[in-house]
């Protein structure tokens, strides 16, 4: 558990009578880029949502940077821990009632106590990094899907988190818009060394940027391997079948 930013041990989750996660154990260390792949309904997104407690697990251990979190964690402590783990959603979830800049600066100003000038300066750097400097004063609804997702990435980065969770970040996008988002993520992974956990259907992308690949099926981790080994020396017939279909 020491040294892992995200530590899960034997995590169980049921929705009603359906077991969604059945004994997940996992460690994400600083600098890891972990791709989580697998068929729909395998529990990938639920796993990600449990990491920052948008869902509560029924049993097992979840710890962020050594701090245990579960349904009993006080709201304030949970909020503090969540600032250490950014999240990027499939549906973007930008706040439509404020500008792009305010979407990025709201949390730093409210939680980290940055002045408007400091927060704006930081946000402008982040917007430059995701290639959206010209859009700073626009409303989210005036952006394309790919631009929205890049703003969402900048918003997550603004809290300077230890790791960022990506929940199918390109699934709602056309292929040509996906690419601009994937390029930003690749840049973060390779040049900025941002720790990431990425649930994705983009197998090619996972292969290109992830250093570890986790394959899930039926609420279990079937395989957790270095990406090279996973793709080049794959033996598991189920995984080979999955890879051949995508």
């Amino acid at each position, binding site marked *: 558990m020491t040294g892992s930013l995200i530590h899960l041990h034997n995590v169980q989750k049921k929705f009603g009578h359906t077991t969604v996660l059945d004994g997940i154990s996992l460690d994400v260390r600083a600098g890891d880029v972990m791709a989580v792949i697998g068929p729909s309904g395998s529990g990938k997104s639920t796993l990600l949502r449990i990491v*920052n407690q*948008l869902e509560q697990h029924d049993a097992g251990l979840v710890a962020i940077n050594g701090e245990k979190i579960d349904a009993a964690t006080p*709201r*304030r402590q949970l*909020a*503090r*821990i*969540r*600032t250490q*783990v*950014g*999240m990027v*959603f499939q*549906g973007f*979830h*930008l*706040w*439509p*009632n*404020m*500008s792009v800049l305010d979407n990025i600066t*709201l*949390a730093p100003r*409210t*939680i980290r106590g940055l002045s408007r000038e400091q927060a704006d300066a930081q946000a402008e750097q982040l917007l430059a990094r995701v290639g959206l400097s010209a859009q700073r*004063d*626009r*409303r989210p*609804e*005036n952006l394309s899907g790919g631009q929205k997702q890049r703003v*969402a990435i900048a*918003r*997550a980065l*603004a*809290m300077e988190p230890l790791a960022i969770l990506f929940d199918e970040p390109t699934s709602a996008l056309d292929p040509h818009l996906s690419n601009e988002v994937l390029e930003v993520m690749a840049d973060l992974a390779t040049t900025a060394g941002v720790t990431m956990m990425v649930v994705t259907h983009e197998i090619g992308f996972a292969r290109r940027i992830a250093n570890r690949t986790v394959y899930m099926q039926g609420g279990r981790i079937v395989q957790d391997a270095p990406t090279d080994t996973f793709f080049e020396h794959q033996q598991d017939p189920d995984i080979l079948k999955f890879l051949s279909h995508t």
Partner: protein
Amino acid sequence: MNWALVWNYLPYLLHAAGMTLLISAMAIAGGTVLGLVLALARSELGRWAGFTVAAYTWLVRGTPLLLQIFVVYYWLPGLGIRLAAFPAGVMVLALNATAYYADIFRSALQTVPPGQIEAALAVGLPWLPTMRRIVIPQAFVPALPPYIGQSITVVKNTSLVSVISVQELMFTSESIYSSTYRVVETIGVAGVLYLGITSILQVFQIWMEHRIHASKTRVR
């Protein structure tokens, strides 16, 4: 018709209209704050708070306002709570409006997609700024038309507190026509004054909707 006679009484009617405006403003303000508190309690505080709010809404919306005015004005003194007509009237109107506003706000809050709140949780934003900066501003747009509608009802409902002799527009009109016997003229002027007050709210709604529309289409 004898408009000249009514003209003499116009200062009294205008003063009474001022009272109606004051009572309305206080009832709307009190009802808005309490309604928002109840709506948030119902959505955030779990089953018992939700049940209590639902019971309050059921009780208040299910009985006539006139009856509620009588309850507060004639019943509460029996329990040792003695209120003058004006504060009693404002209180009943505010508490009555609270039930309607709470329901309007609750349904408006529900229109904000859960992803909006999840995004706030995910960056570690506490509850209050999440509500103040993200949820309530987005719920404002769907809440506006029914909110203004209910506020107009509050203005018109102020006429009912005349029965406990609060000297607002309706009470004053009645006193004037019972001494002058000029019912049609007096009530006619009162009607125009009521329309003036409710028009403020309708103009406010048009202005706000215009602003919301403009802010949406604006590219700064």
